[in-house]
């Protein structure tokens, strides 16, 4: 009596076939005894072959120069941002000092 392969066994069989691994005795027997399984496997292998053989897209010639130009522009922008960060007026120091001075002045006037 022909034993039907489980879904997991069919998956293993099909993956092994694509990966070029040797099939086990049970797998070979299942293929011989089940024409539908063989048809499905052939269709599966044909799909993989079609993908492998499909023409590849080539990147447009302009792509590399566009990328490099954007990176250069970005580098220039980052340099300007860094310069501003290094030489800017330290408002986070001056403002609290001014506020503290105003509060001190207010307290002196009130007292």
């Amino acid at each position, binding site marked *: 009596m022909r034993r039907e392969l489980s879904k997991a066994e069919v998956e293993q069989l*099909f993956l092994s076939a694509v990966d070029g691994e040797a099939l086990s005795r049970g797998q070979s027997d299942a293929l011989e005894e089940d024409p539908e399984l063989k048809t499905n496997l052939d*269709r599966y292998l044909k*799909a993989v072959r079609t*993908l492998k053989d*499909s023409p*590849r897209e080539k990147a447009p010639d302009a*792509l*590399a120069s566009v990328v*490099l130009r954007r990176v250069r522009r*970005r580098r220039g922008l980052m340099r300007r941002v860094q310069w501003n960060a290094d030489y800017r007026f330290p408002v986070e120091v001056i403002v609290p000092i001014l506020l503290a001075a105003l509060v001190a002045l207010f307290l002196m006037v009130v007292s």
Partner: protein
Amino acid sequence: MSSDVLELPAGMVEVAPVASAEVSSERVLLAKLRRRDPSAFEQLVRQHQDRVYDFCVRMVSDREEAFDLTQEIFISIHQHVERFRADAKLSTWVFRIARNHCLNRIKYLKRRGRGRSEDYGEANELAITESLGGAAGPDQHLSRKRERDLVHRAIETLDDDQRSLVILRDVEGLSYEEIMEITELPEGTVKSRLHRAREKLGQVLAKLESDLGSGGD
């Protein structure tokens, strides 16, 4: 006097270290990239642009979007090269970034409706081919175009995850280990999703081919 050359034990054959040469040249490139060497980045772009562009076209089925996406991917690589841990191949990391960008773009396009160009339409196809300096004689061009269209239409029927797995394994030829690093999925999951994707592709391709065949009668 003893020789300085280490003699191999009997039966061992010295093999040319091809793999280690590739690894060391990749390490050199990575070191230059981390030092922000512009020529290193240009080398990286030129080495990988075709594969990345092809991957993007197959994922989003739109050449204009793929062109923009590929730029974004390389800009992202440039920004984050310090984060690359160097415990994997550089190309694996590049594909990981490419896949993430493609999946995000697909989600964005689904929310918005569609990409900017027609969905792999003939008018756009011809315009793009002509602008790229387009190629062979009419018959060869037609047959290659038909084959490419067939594959793209079939791939489009897959969900995003399945699509990326099939492209990484069957088009790019990456190993299961590399795909596991790119997708962060366990091996069993990669294999079962890949299997389901291929099954679906087989059915879709068979149907498309029979539709084409019956259309010619």
